[in-house]
């Protein structure tokens, strides 16, 4: 139990496996991106030769910028090799019924739409501006009053210029990327520059420590994995990146799975890649999420193609109807060809394991849990878990349970927040065109904590005080953007301090000025990515 943790085995490749390998190696075996002459940890990733990676998960949060920087990949290489573009948030379309006319949240065709941007409202975190917008909600949408990204993204503009240094921004951003290419880049980088060992082999068994094992590890730990070609592979810590199969944590260590289908119904998806009409068609600056009668359709713009998918509840509709709706969505772009599409079917078990770390095994990514990609939380959770392991790596097996307990607690908070925040999108919708939407508003399907918060938010805007944990995945601002984008009614405060009102007014004015300036100086996503092929972003 006193032996130092020095050997780490990651089972499974894909983005989860390679991000984890990269973050742990960068934290412990490198300094400023350069491999240390005597690396502290021995890191091995075992990947099965014929398990295809699932290849969805094409949207990231801004956290990916610091993850990539930490791993030591330069941004220009990443963007060009992973067919990546800039994402400034998510645009939700048709999540509100259009019979309720709005002056501020409608698209030109009358559809309801709003943006959940990656930037915080202007003035945050020093100044909470939402209460000062409430009295003006009939004149201007929340997003347009407090941030620039709604306007910027409507013109497919980039979040920065060619002269902005790598990973820096004018407006906060994450990425849209090709997940398969991303895995490849990470693999190249980790094996070449960070000395991660790569074994391509089948894992045939996972063997636990028992009375007969000669080891320092306690009973019930994973002793080794058995592979077809390489035999036994031992480690002090195993990382389960085996996807939904969760071979180590779920299957071998029998950590219970908590199904969340009673809260978030979507358990099926149809995914397809769609070509652009022309080589220079605009690349959208945000993920588009268009609500349907029994789910919603994602639409992600990469430089070379779009990734589109319909995610829906199999209890409320069937595959055929879902396919018809996907065809109808694509018809304006594909015309008659939309009828010929043959998308890939994916089944999702919405939910997560009770804990992500048991004994000497941590699960990262879908091996820990998966939920519909409504807020693109999958990669963000991968990054969070991998960072937690990398930065809090237990020095010995004896201290591992203490760290595991901490990480598990935070893991549970994160999942609770993700589920409540995604549910919020449905609960405050006024759509009534199917049982699906009615069922989403049924009190029995809504977590108690969310019900309580919604009652509070009728009287005051969400604030940081509504969340007691320090490290939150979604800040209060995210709730504000979704609630007010959906025209949720919060009673304006009767008394606002005049001095603060004045300060808010200045910020509103500044925001309008910034919008008009950015519309002049920002290139489109397409133009900036073309420029990048000639001259990369500089480091400084």
């Amino acid at each position, binding site marked *: 139990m006193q032996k130092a943790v020095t050997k780490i085995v990651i089972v499974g490749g894909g983005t989860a496996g390679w991000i984890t390998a990269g973050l742990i190696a960068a934290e412990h075996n490198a300094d400023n991106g350069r491999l240390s002459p005597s690396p502290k940890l021995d890191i091995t990733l075992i990947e099965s030769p014929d398990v295809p990676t699932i290849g969805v998960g094409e949207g990231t949060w801004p956290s990916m910028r610091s993850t990539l920087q930490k791993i030591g990949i330069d941004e220009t290489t990443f963007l060009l090799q992973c067919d990546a573009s800039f994402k400034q948030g998510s645009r939700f379309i048709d999540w509100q019924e259009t019979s309720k006319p709005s002056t501020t949240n409608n698209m030109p065709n009358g559809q309801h739409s709003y943006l959940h941007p990656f930037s915080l409202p202007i003035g945050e975190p020093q100044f909470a501006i939402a209460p000062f917008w409430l009295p003006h909600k009939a004149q201007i949408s929340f997003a347009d009053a407090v941030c620039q990204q709604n306007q910027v993204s409507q013109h497919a503009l980039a979040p920065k*210029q*060619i*002269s*902005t240094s790598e990973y820096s921004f004018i407006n906060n951003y994450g990425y849209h990327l090709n997940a398969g290419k991303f895995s490849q880049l990470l693999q190249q980088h980790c094996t070449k520059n960070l000395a991660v060992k790569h074994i391509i082999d089948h894992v045939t068994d996972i063997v636990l420590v028992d009375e007969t094992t000669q080891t320092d590890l306690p009973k019930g730990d994973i002793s080794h994995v058995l592979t077809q070609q390489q035999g036994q592979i031992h480690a002090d810590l195993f990382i389960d990146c085996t996807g939904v199969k969760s071979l180590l944590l779920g299957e071998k260590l029998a950590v219970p799975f908590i199904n969340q289908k009673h809260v978030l119904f979507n358990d099926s998806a149809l995914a397809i890649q769609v070509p652009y009409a022309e080589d220079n068609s605009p690349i959208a600056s945000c993920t588009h999420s268009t609500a349907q009668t029994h789910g919603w359709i994602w639409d992600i713009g990469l430089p070379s193609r779009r990734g589109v998918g319909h995610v829906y509840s199999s209890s409320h509709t069937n595959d055929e109807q879902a396919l018809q709706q996907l065809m109808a969505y694509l018809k304006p772009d594909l015309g008659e060809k939309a009828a010929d599409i043959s998308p890939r079917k994916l089944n999702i078990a919405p939910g997560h394991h009770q804990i992500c770390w048991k004994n000497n095994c941590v699960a990262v990514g879908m091996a820990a849990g998966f939920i519909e990609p409504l807020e693109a939380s999958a990669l963000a959770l991968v990054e969070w878990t991998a960072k937690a392991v990398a930065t809090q790596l237990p020095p010995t097996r004896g201290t591992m349970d203490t760290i595991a307990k901490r990480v598990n607690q935070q893991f549970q908070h994160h999942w609770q927040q993700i589920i409540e925040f995604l549910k919020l999108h449905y609960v405050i919708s006024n759509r009534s065109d199917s049982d699906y939407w009615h069922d989403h508003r049924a009190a029995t399907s809504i977590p108690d904590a969310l019900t309580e918060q919604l009652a509070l938010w009728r009287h005051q805007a969400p604030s940081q005080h509504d969340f007691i944990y320090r490290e939150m995945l979604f800040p209060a601002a995210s709730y504000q953007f979704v609630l007010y984008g959906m025209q949720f009614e919060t009673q304006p405060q009767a008394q606002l301090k005049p001095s603060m009102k004045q300060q808010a007014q200045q910020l509103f004015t500044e925001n309008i000025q910034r919008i008009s300036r950015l519309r002049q100086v920002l290139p489109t996503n397409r133009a900036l990515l073309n*420029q990048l092929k*000639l*001259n*990369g*972003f*500089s*480091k*400084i």
Partner: protein
Amino acid sequence: MTQHVLLNSVEHKDLKVITERSAKYGDNLWYTVTFPLEFRSVQAHYPIFFHKDAATGQFYAVALFGFSNEDNLFLTDKGWDASYVPLTIRRQPFLIGKQVVREDGIEQEQHVIHIDIDHPRVNKEQGEAVFHPFGGNTDYLDEVGDMLAAIHQGLNDSKVFIDILLEHDLLESFTLDIELDNGEKHQMIGFYTINEEKLNMLEGAVLAKLHQQGYLQAIYMSMASQSNVRGLLDRKNAQHKNR
């Protein structure tokens, strides 16, 4: 508007170029591009900083003339008040162009002189003649040719220089905050300078290499040139007083 055409002694035989320095001829610039091969002359008068080209994001060295757009503190009623004017200013309205020529059946790229015929310096009445009345280059045009060649060589060399600076993390961004005697404040962002801490930590082998290439001298000259900010400030204060 600008209109760049290949200079030739037939069409352009009567052209003259005004060489006087004035805002009306486009000299009201607050900085211009420079390069290590002219640092020795530039550093005697102007601060040298580094700046990114807005169109490409690439770094280049600049000589600073003022603190805000269109504010050239060296420009007076009597012309340019310094004994050295950077080459990228003096070259106007000429620029270097490329032309593919066939020589003995082999295609070769040649550098040729282009002129912006819409430039306010270009006319037929006053200034320096470009060609002699009966053909042949004037001394002025020969001088222009030398200048353009020096700029071309200087910019190529500058690119090598800057790549080396970036490779060794020797550039850092800085904000120049200035306060004038009348209390007016200016903040200049988007400029970069030599990171002296990193420079002092360079290993001997790297320093030796920089020295051999002549870049160590360029680095120190750009650092020393920063004291010229004081001179710029004095000019700015004097300008306010005389208003």
